């Protein structure tokens, strides 16, 4: 039995109308793993959260490039979302539920909490002034292996 692998990479401008584009593109790529509707919703939400973070926090009022890299290993989907924005000073604090640096924009501070609970793993790497990368992992649990 062969170990299935695949990958894709997307680069796009940090415009807010790309939030929908990004989550739909990643969901379409994930579809080959035959996820459930719920797993697909988890993936779309996590991508939407991290891309939105790059747009409103990473790049704030300027425009920059957001990169998404997806890799499939067997039944695991890895998604990396990176920006070259302002970076995060304290990652542990940023991850706390309800913590937001933009309450004036009606942000809830729940983005990272949602990603952590919907994905199997989340790792944040960030350097102030250089940018941020959020790496997420989702295991697609197939009920039975019907093919291969």
């Amino acid at each position: 039995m062969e170990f299935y692998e695949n990958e894709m990479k997307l680069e796009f401008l940090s415009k807010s109308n790309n939030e929908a584009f990004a989550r739909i593109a990643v969901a379409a790529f994930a579809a080959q793993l035959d996820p459930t509707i719920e797993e697909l919703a988890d993936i779309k939400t996590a991508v939407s959260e991290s891309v939105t973070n790059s747009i409103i926090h990473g790049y704030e009022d300027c425009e920059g490039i957001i990169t998404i890299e997806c890799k499939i290993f067997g039944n695991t989907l890895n998604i990396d979302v990176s920006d070259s924005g302002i970076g995060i000073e304290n990652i542990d604090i940023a991850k706390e539920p309800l913590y937001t640096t933009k309450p004036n924009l009606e942000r809830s501070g729940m983005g990272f909490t949602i990603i952590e609970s919907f994905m199997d793993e989340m790792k944040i790497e960030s350097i102030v002034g250089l940018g941020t990368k959020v790496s997420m992992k989702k295991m697609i649990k197939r009920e039975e292996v019907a093919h291969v």
Partner: protein
Amino acid sequence: MKSEYLKKDKLLILEITEEIDHHTTEKIRRRADYEIERFMPRKTIFDFNSVTFMDSAGIGMLIGRYKMAKMFGGTVEIKNVNPNIKRILEMCGVLKLVPIVNEV
């Protein structure tokens, strides 16, 4: 978004017709605040029947509308929420402020 005001019940129904994310909340917020200010409803209900996606931007939007409605003496509820969106609402504790309409 479609809106309907039932004068007799002082009830404002706002049907959201798009996916809810940071990009779309700006428009939803503006329209909702306009309608709430205009009618000062006793109750505002967001109908999620055609909402297929919502991320945490929706949480901020709902809490913001809750505060807005409260200033005008009203409350906010939601109806027809799909299970995936319901999970996010539950996780973020929004349902205490903005409950799901009790349907008999």
